[in-house]
C-alpha cells in the first residue's frame, strides 16, 4: 500500500511540483490562447494565474510554499528585462528618428495612467494604503513594488494590481487603440509599454516587431521616469 500522505508531504515541500505546475499552467494557457486564435482577450497569463490560484486555494497550500518552487521562473524576470535591449538594438535605426517624440509621449502618458487610477481610487473612497499601492501600477513589477514601499503602499498588493493592469492592457489595449484610430505601430507599441509594462510588451512583440521594440523601450523609460518622479510628486501632493 502506497502511503499517499507521505507523497503529498514530499510534493508540498519540494520545489519540483510547484515549478512543474507553473509551467503546465502556462502551457495550458497557451493552448487556450491558440484555440481562441490568439484573440487578445484570451490572455494566457490570466488563465495560468487563475488556474494556479484556484489550485492553491482548493488544496490549501500556502503561497510562500508554492513560491519556493515558482521563484526559479520569477528569477528570470531580471535577465528578461535586460534582454529587452536586444529588440531595441535591432530596431534602433528605426527608433532613433522618433526618440524625442517617444520620450515626451511616454512621460506624459505614464503620468496620465497613474493620475487617472489614483483619482478613481480617491473618488471611490479607497483606503490610503490601497491608493498608494495603486499609484505605481503601470510600471514593471520590481520597480512598482519598490515605489509602493517608498510611498506607504503594500508591495504585495502592488504586484497584484501591476499584473491586473498588464492583463487589462494586453487584452483590451489593442481594441482601445483601434477605437482611438492609432494605426502607427510605433505609437501602438509606445502606448502598450507605457501603460501595461512587460505584459503589454509581450503582446506587442507577438503582433509586430516594430511595436515590440517601441513597447520595450517605453516600458524601460516609464520605469525610469516613474521611479524618479512619483515619490517626489507623492510627497508634494499627499505629504
Amino acid at each position, binding site marked *: 500500500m502506497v502511503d499517499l500522505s507521505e507523497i503529498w508531504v514530499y510534493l508540498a515541500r519540494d520545489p519540483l511540483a510547484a515549478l512543474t505546475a507553473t509551467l503546465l499552467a502556462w502551457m495550458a494557457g497557451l493552448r487556450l490562447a491558440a484555440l481562441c486564435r490568439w484573440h487578445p482577450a484570451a490572455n494566457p497569463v490570466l488563465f495560468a494565474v487563475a488556474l494556479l490560484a484556484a489550485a492553491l486555494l482548493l488544496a490549501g497550500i500556502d503561497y510562500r510554499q508554492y513560491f519556493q518552487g515558482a521563484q526559479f521562473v520569477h528569477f528570470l524576470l531580471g535577465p528578461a528585462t535586460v534582454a*529587452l535591449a536586444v529588440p531595441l538594438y535591432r530596431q534602433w535605426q528605426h527608433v532613433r528618428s522618433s526618440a524625442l517624440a517617444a520620450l515626451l509621449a511616454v512621460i506624459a502618458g505614464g503620468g496620465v495612467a497613474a493620475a487617472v*487610477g489614483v483619482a478613481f481610487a480617491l473618488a471611490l473612497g479607497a483606503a490610503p494604503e490601497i491608493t498608494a499601492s495603486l499609484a505605481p501600477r503601470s510600471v514593471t513589477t520590481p520597480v512598482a513594488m519598490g515605489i509602493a514601499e517608498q510611498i506607504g503602499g503594500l508591495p504585495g498588493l502592488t504586484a497584484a494590481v501591476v499584473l491586473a493592469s498588464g492583463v487589462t492592457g494586453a487584452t483590451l489595449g489593442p481594441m482601445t487603440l483601434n477605437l482611438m484610430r492609432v494605426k502607427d505601430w510605433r505609437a501602438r507599441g509606445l502606448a502598450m509599454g507605457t501603460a501595461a509594462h512587460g505584459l503589454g510588451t509581450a503582446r506587442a512583440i507577438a503582433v509586430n516587431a516594430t511595436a515590440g521594440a517601441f513597447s520595450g523601450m517605453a516600458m524601460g523609460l516609464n520605469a525610469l521616469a516613474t521611479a524618479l518622479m512619483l515619490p517626489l510628486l507623492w510627497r508634494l501632493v499627499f505629504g
Partner: protein
Amino acid sequence: MINGLTLLLLCQLCGEVLGRALHLPVPGPVIGMALLFAGLLLRDRLSDRPAEAPAAPGLGQTADTLLMHLGLLFVPAGVGVVVYLPQLARDWAPLSLAVVAGTLAGIAFTGRLAQALIRRLG
C-alpha cells in the same frame, strides 16, 4: 544559449551593483538593459560591421527565447493575489475601476499623443 544567458546575467549584476553603489532609484535589471544596449551600440561603433549582423553570438537567440515566454515570468508573482483576497474583497470596486480606467486611459492618451508627436517631430 549559455553565452547569451551569461551576458544577460552579467549586465543585470553590473546594474544591481551600480544602482546600489550610486543609490539610484532605478532597479538593477533596468540599468542592466541600458548597459547592454549601450554596449551593443558601442561595439558597432568600434567595429564596422553591417548593422544587420546578428548581435553577440547566442545573445539574440537567448533574448528571443526569454521574450517569447515573457508572460510566463509574471505568473508566480501573479499567483500572489491569493494572499490579498481580504483586501480585494473589501476594496474591489475602487481597485478594479482604477486599474481598468487608468490603464485604458493611459493607453488611449499615450497612443494618440505618440502618433501626433511622431508625425510632427518625425
